[in-house]
């Protein structure tokens, strides 16, 4: 060993440990890289592509790409943030997100990333996809209109040994499926205490009876930019 290893992010020297991804090294050093499908406690997925950075000039997903000695990483550039804004807009038009009437508004990471990237409109034409709501479960509601396929619920439930959720299908027709004979959440093994019921970054999985405990206007991202929140202890 020759002491600590380093990469640079936007010129700032950032140490890393062997086996860490760029995202992990950045977070440990207090550098925010926008992300949606990444969660520090789960195996990285690498699907939303919001965390795209340039590593020695080449695009890479920082949540999956291993840090290596001497990498020069570009993160907070106008060009990358413009791309991230477009990707976020793609997620907005693909599903049906009516923020003003959504229970998650103010606590939603998709919305918060939109704020962070100064997204002022949806830019692209809407798909107006037909997506189902599953209100069968007494404690948990699934509204597929708001799913962004980050797979966090899938990973969380798999880790709990239940595999309640799965993302099925191909291309633009992908959708969230529930593992039960009827396909309904009520018939699945999901319990309200499961991590999977609480992990969704958007309002696609909601725990009933909790949505309006904190009034809109007093919620997390109503007062904090996601870059502060994300690096703090509370991530969900």
């Amino acid at each position, binding site marked *: 060993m020759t002491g600590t290893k380093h990469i640079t992010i936007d010129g700032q020297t950032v140490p890393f440990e062997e086996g860490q991804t760029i995202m992990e090294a950045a977070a440990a050093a207090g550098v925010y890289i926008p992300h949606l499908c990444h969660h520090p406690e789960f195996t990285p997925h690498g699907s939303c592509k919001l965390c795209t950075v340039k590593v020695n000039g080449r695009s890479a997903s920082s949540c999956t790409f291993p840090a290596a000695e001497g990498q020069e990483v570009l993160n907070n550039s106008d060009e990358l943030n413009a*791309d991230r804004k477009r990707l976020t807009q793609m997620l907005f038009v693909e599903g049906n997100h009516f923020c003003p009437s959504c229970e998650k508004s103010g606590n939603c990471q998709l919305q918060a990333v939109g704020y962070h990237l100064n997204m002022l409109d949806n830019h692209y034409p809407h798909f107006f996809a037909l997506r189902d709501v599953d209100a069968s479960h007494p404690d948990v509601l699934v509204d597929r209109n708001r799913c962004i396929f980050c797979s966090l619920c899938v990973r969380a439930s798999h880790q709990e040994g239940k595999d309640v959720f799965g993302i099925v299908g191909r291309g633009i027709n992908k959708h969230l499926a529930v593992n039960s004979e009827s396909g309904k959440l009520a018939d699945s093994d999901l319990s309200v205490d499961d991590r999977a019921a609480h992990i969704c970054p958007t309002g696609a999985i909601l725990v009933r009876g909790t949505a309006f405990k904190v009034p809109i206007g007093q919620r997390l991202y109503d007062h904090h930019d996601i870059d502060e929140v994300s690096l703090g202890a509370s991530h969900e």
Partner: protein
Amino acid sequence: MESFIKQLTEKYQHQSTQLLMILREVQAQYFHVPSQAIDLLVTQLDVPKTQILGVIEFYSFLSATPRGRYDIYISDSITDHMLGKKAVADYLCEKLHTPLGTVRADGLVSIANSSCTGLCDQGPAILVNGHAVGRLNKARIDEIAALIQQKTPVTEWPTSLLQVDDNVQKSGLLLDSHLEKGAAIEAAWQRGLEQTLHEVEKAGLRGRGGAGYTTAWKWHLCYEGYEEDSFCDISVHKQPQRYVVCNADEGEPGTFKDRILLNSYAHELIEGMTLCASIIKSNQGFIYLRGEYLHLYSKLNAVIAERRAAGLLGANILGKNFDFDVEVRLGLGAYICGEESALIESLEGKMGVPRNRPPYPVTSGYLNKPTVVNNVETFVAAAHIGLHGGDWFAAHGTEKSKGTKILSISGDCARPGIYEYPFGTTIKTILEDCGAEDVLGIQVGGPSGTFISNKEFDRKIAFEDLATGGSFIIFNSSRDIFEIVRNFTHFFAHESCGFCTPCRVGTSLMKNQYDKICTGHGSTGDVRELQEIAKLVKSTSHCGLGQTAAQPILTTLERYPELYNAKLKQISFEPGFDLDGSLAIARKLTGRDDSNAHLAQVEEE
């Protein structure tokens, strides 16, 4: 049904990796995968229901709702269109009383479009219950309709219909001759396996699947592991279990050269795989055969059986105390499964979603074991090198691209088919050989490759100039660039696996945007927007599919800006809203399509 599923899962030893093979048989039996079968499989295979649902929805040739007993897929490749696909499809649908995209009321027939079926040199083509029928015309369709009316099983149809020709027009190093069975393996052992790997290196052999990775280096890494690869536990890549996988997915539209190799050079292919196995110390190989090549499945199995009988596969091959066997697994209609990590997922019985890399398949592939994935042609070339040595191969081609490349030539030319050329051959020579005249441009390397114009005929087939997996589609000046690019753009949107945001959403956005421009509703701003989306999809997508999906748009925008300009409305802003188009849903709901249901009516009155 219960006993059928039970027998089936027993036949496949209850292995969840065999899910695709199992579902294929369920589909063949019931013309769909009934929900009862899904529930039985959940218990029998011990997999989550979501995995089975995912696989059924992911692969084009599986369906959760009943298809016809004669399930027909019409190849929608641009090459089929150039051979008159539209008229042929219309006639077929009319003859069988089944509109495209529907199942006939009596359940006898269903017809749908599919991506390129790999019969571009003998199209227009269809698949009937998985079996390929090419060279469609009215007479052949009449024959097919009669056979279906008489309910004759496809396997009993006349060979004149089911015959697929090799169509080799020009042979070279690899296609000229057949190797004596076992000769390359024998030579490799005599020379020494390490020395043989050295010969493959000396040959300068690079992967023929498109990316052009140095084959010897790939084999070396699979055996040794990345020394410096901190990401992968050293104990993982020192494990003795390694796999050899042949990528026979050949899904790139316009490519069909592997079809010929699998049909007539299967011994060379398997010899190449065996050679690789002996070098990397593997005892199990797989051929991942695209579902569209079902007609080659039993042939390949016969070759495998023959080699087992000859002591060239199985235990103690040629008395060298070396065991190796090969199993053929079928795909089910998904272009993305040609991408090596998606292919591995598919081999494991899952949706074909590309993995994150690193780790690469050479350190963590099938069942997370070190795995070599090579193209069919790569293995065939390796077999020849195993026998003749590296210098023999390296004497052909260019400095950076050694040996020959087998091209699949289709489109506007007198003699479509298979042509083998040394690397470095110019486009001009190729066009002369196949009899192409009045050429507008050529799609080299398929939709994910490059569209070259008629000013670029001095360019060469080589990794350092025009790299190609083998697709070579020629367009003459009667063709419309917009129709070509539109076909390709729809193809990518249809084949995107949907894993990552830019490709899942972006390919659909590009498709809609391109349609808008094609139908004359585009303005200057729309082309700029199209270009912006294209660049974003290219630079941020997860895998090669998304990274190349914008190629047809970008390469033609670069070469024919004046054509795009001519397509545009002469205003700087065109609303993204097509009023008449948006009434399509209402028309569908009301079952009306008369002139009063269209907006133009208002203006005319």
